[in-house]
Structure formats: C-alpha cells, structure tokens
C-alpha cells in the first residue's frame, strides 16, 4: 500500500525525483525557502513592538555585517549600554536578544513570557528589570546578568533561521553569569515556534530548569533535563547563535 510519509514529519520527504535529482517544482520551492531564510537574517528588531517594558541595550556590533563577522562583539555590550545597568540583587534576569532572527523574537518572546511570569510570581522570584539587546549573541547574557547582580540569566534569542523555520526562538539558561562562561555551562530549550514546541511546554521546561538550577546552584551538562513531561518537547542544537 502507498503511504504518504509527509503526514508524519515536517522534513522534506516524499519529494519524488527526476532521475537522481529533484523534480523542478521541489527545486524551486527549496530556492524560494532559502531566499526567505536569508532575508530573515537581516530583519531588524523593533523593540517597542515587543509590547513589554524593558531597558534597551546594544552590543558592541554596530551593524549586521559586523555582527556576522565578529561574534566577540555580539557577546559584549557597548559602553553606553553597560553604563545603563545598575547592580542589584536578583534571583534571575531575563534578557531578550534579536540573535539571528528578529522575526522569532517578535512572534514568540512576549507569548513565552506570558506563560513563564505567573509561574515565577507564584514562587516569589526576585527578577531583575527585563532587558532587550540589539545585535546580541547568547553570551551577552553573561555580562548583563553579572552587571545586574543576578544569580541566573535566561536569554531568549532568535535562532538561526532554518529553511522551514525562519522564526524559531531559543532560550539559554546560565547559572552565575559572568563573561567567560562556556556553552557546556548552559542549558538550552530550542525550537520554540508555531510548529515546534509550544509556549506552555517551553515555559514548563524553563521553569523546571530554573528551579533545578537554583536548588543545585549550577547549569550545563551536569544538569540533565528530566522535567516531568508535559506532552512533547524540543531542545538543544550543538552550537549557540
């Protein structure tokens, strides 16, 4: 019997073939999707459009080309932004960064926070003021978290656009943030988007990880994610944006 494999996965199965190559319609569909994903990389974040009160910051990468060529600059704040942060004493800081997909941040960041905040409020977490950073990479959360005096930092960031998913949001959680932290010291929830992991599931897992991090005073490979399952979920790619 014939079965349509496309019913089971968003992967590009069941494409058919022209000789050993793709049929023309699939070749053109791929090229259109690639052009759209390339465009998504150059979308700009519109901070007021996020609809959440925040402190606006900028990384040391002044434009998109610099951002792509100089990851070190995307990991540090520019001097004016650094001066804007006051040190306090907080359980956690939440940072929103454009990363490689401003579109992902626009579509999903506020929705994820709506799910997360009530869970944290119920446990009386002391949260630092929300920050939004332009031209930011994951590790910029280390500097922001340290300056704010937060024990834990969660960075919500636009992941690199995929062909079928130009709007995927990731969250990276780091205990005791300070410049020099490595990726092995972070936990990640990836693929937060319409066809990926839902806001409720992502918030459930993030909340679980935040509680575990606080209880065990660490994040990273030593903190295995064994949250009681709330339906299905997504996770961590090998490299960070």
């Amino acid at each position: 019997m014939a079965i349509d494999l496309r019913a089971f996965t968003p992967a590009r199965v069941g494409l058919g073939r022209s000789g050993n190559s793709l049929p023309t319609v699939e070749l053109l569909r791929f090229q259109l999707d690639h052009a759209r994903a390339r465009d998504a990389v150059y979308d700009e974040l519109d901070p007021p459009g996020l609809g959440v009160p925040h402190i606006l910051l900028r990384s040391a990468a002044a434009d998109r080309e610099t951002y792509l060529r100089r990851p070190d600059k995307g990991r540090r704040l520019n001097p004016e932004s650094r001066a804007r942060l006051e040190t306090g004493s907080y359980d956690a800081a939440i940072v929103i960064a454009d990363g490689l997909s401003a579109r992902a941040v626009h579509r999903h960041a506020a929705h994820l926070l709506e799910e997360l905040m009530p869970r944290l409020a119920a446990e009386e977490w002391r949260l630092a003021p929300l920050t939004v950073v332009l031209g930011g990479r994951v590790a910029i959360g280390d500097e922001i978290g340290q300056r704010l005096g937060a024990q834990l930092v969660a960075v919500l960031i636009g992941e690199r656009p995929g062909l079928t998913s130009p709007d995927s949001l990731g969250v990276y959680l780091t205990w005791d943030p300070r410049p020099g932290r490595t990726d092995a010291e972070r936990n990640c929830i990836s693929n937060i988007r319409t066809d990926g992991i839902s806001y409720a599931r992502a918030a459930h897992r993030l909340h679980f990880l935040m509680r575990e991090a606080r209880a065990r005073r660490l994040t990273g490979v030593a903190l295995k994610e064994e949250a009681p399952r709330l339906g299905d979920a997504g996770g961590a790619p090998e490299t960070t944006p």
Partner: protein
Amino acid sequence: MKLADVPLRDLLRNPIVPYETDEVTRLICDSHDAEAFAPIGHLTVGEFRDWLLSEQATGDRLKALAPGLIPEMAAAVSKIMRLQDLVSVAAKCRVVTRFRSTIGLPGRLSTRLQPNHPTDDLKGIAASILEGLSYGNGDAVIGVNPAADNPSRVDALLHLLNRIREHYDIPTQICVLAHVTTQMRALENGAPVDLVFQSVAGTEAANTAFGVNLALLDEAWQAAKELKRGEHVMYFETGQGSALSADAHHGVDQQTCEARAYAVARRYQPLLVNTVVGFIGPEYLYDGKQILRAGLEDHFCGKLLGLPMGCDICYTNHAKADQDDMDALLTLLGVAGCNYIMGVPGADDVMLHYQSTSFHDALYVRSVLGLKPAPEFEAWLERQPVLMPEQWLLT
C-alpha cells in the same frame, strides 16, 4: 620565514599550544611515532608537499607514515596545497573501518542517514529513515541528533532505531548523538548502543567547552569496547571554528586547531569521523568559497593522519552559500575518496536549522563517479523488495 621553508622537525619540537597546560598537546607529543616519521624527517613543509604528490607516496607508504605525523604538519602542508593537490593526495589514502558494514573501501561512498525531527517525534524520525533507506542511504550509520539531551528520550530513540534496524535486518549501525555522558548513562541502562558519539575539538579548553576531556572519552571508549562489538566503536564530529568560538584557540588558526581535533579522534580508533564543515556559521567560514576549501583541507588532513574521514557538506542560512556550493564540494569530495557524506531529507535539517546533502545527492555522486554503497549494504539493498512502512507508522 616562509611556511614552505619551515622544517617539519621544528613543528615537532615547538608545540604550538603549551605542553604543560594542554592535554591535547601532550597526547600529540607523547603518541608521536618517531620511527614512522623518519622517512620524511628531513623535509621542510614545502618539500613535504612535493613528496606527498610524488609517485613515491603510495597508499601503503602514506598509511605507514600516519602515526609519524602530527596535526600541525598536516595543517601546515595543506595551507600550501591547491584544491587539486588536496584531492590528489587524499585519494591515495584509503582508511577502511568496519562494524556491521565496511566503510571506506575503494569505489565506495557511504552515507549517514540523518533523520532529525524538531521534537524527536518517533514516527517522524521513522518516516525519514524509511525514505532514506529507499534511496540507498544509511550504510555508514543511522544517526539522530536528539532535539533534547534527555536520558529517557535518548533511550527511546535508541530503541526505535534498533527496532527498525533489526526488523529490516540492515547491515548498518545506529547512533543517537547526545552528549557522551548521556550515552554512557543509556549504555549502563542497557539501551542498544552501537556507536558512542561525541563532538571534539583541538585544544583542552575547547573540549572543556564541549563538556569533555580525554579521561572521560577514555571511559566512554572502554564502556563501548566492553560490549565486544568490534574494534571500531566510536564516532566523532569536528569543525573549523569550534576552538575559536569557545575562545579556546590560544591564538592558533582555526584549521590547525581542527587538525588537532583529529589527534583526539585518532586515539580512539573510530568507525567514523566527519567535519561538519559549514555548520558553525559565517563567523568562521564566511562564504561558499571558504567552505569549499575548508571541506577539502579537513578531509585531506584527516585522511593523512589516518582517520576514516567523512564530511557533513553544509552551510547555514546566515552564510553566503547555497546548494550550488554544496554540489561543488560534494563532487570534489567524491573524487577525493571521502568515506561518507550525510543524507538529510531534501538537504534541509528541520531540527538543527541548516542545509546539508540530501538522499538525492548521494544518488547523484554515486552515479556520476561510479561509486557504490558499502558492500554489505549493497547486497542488502539488492535483497529488498520495496520497503513497507510498518505498524509504528500506520497506527
């Protein structure tokens, strides 16, 4: 001083990353085989290139030389080689490994079937596997990158892959590419582990960023060997830029760091090693031309050092590259005798968000270059009627 005039011996005498503070350097120096090195010990980097291209450098001689070479020598000579030099010399180096299938034989090109799914959905993964098998992909390994590094999920994925492999009696290997510690836990729980995987890099500090060190890898290797499945039980991935992105490169260029990662891999007699050449992004390899060059350098350096080298020919959407660049690198690596490439449905990895080579691409390169899959897998393909999806898809 020109690089071409540097004596190879100088590279051996002056470790580029300090011996005292880096265990990868200690591994490189302490495992160097002076006897194997002797035949070329008097050469400069430039003379070494001439020797490699000469008729004297036969496949057998290159194989015998491998333990005498350190990564810094391979990286140095590759820098003064053109693409055709990298192809010519690599094509002379055959590195054959075996588990259920034999990989790297002349006239063969294998693939890793990579059926990733954004939420690790078991039916979705099974669907991609069936599609890939029907295109003759999967003879190097059926290897899933899990979306979440979660022990119970990794167990479930291993059981799924193993069930499919056993059901169709496929002469291949399975692997779930979680962190090595997660796989060790799965192994202890009795999950059906074939190969143990880990991403590795070329400095101790970069490996720390991956959450590994040599002692941990030794432990994982020991545990995998205790299953008595043969001598090649490890799988490693590498990629230029991993040390630099972790600020763990000691000022050393990213290609030399990459070659040093092969010294780490070499210690464990792996079944499979591949560079994931364009994965880390344009921060490290900016465009198609750089990815092309890097892919051929990595394959050459790996083969020269005696590794069963494959390549994930790939790019991300923030790099200036497209599928044309992948076609060029794929064709050149096919000519260079690359052991295996990736088979990703439609070249689009819907979990890791990057583009690689497709099931179709494997058919293309095998067809134009007259290459076949691993012999055991080829025989299996000939025995197969059309693959019928089983109950895990239909229910």
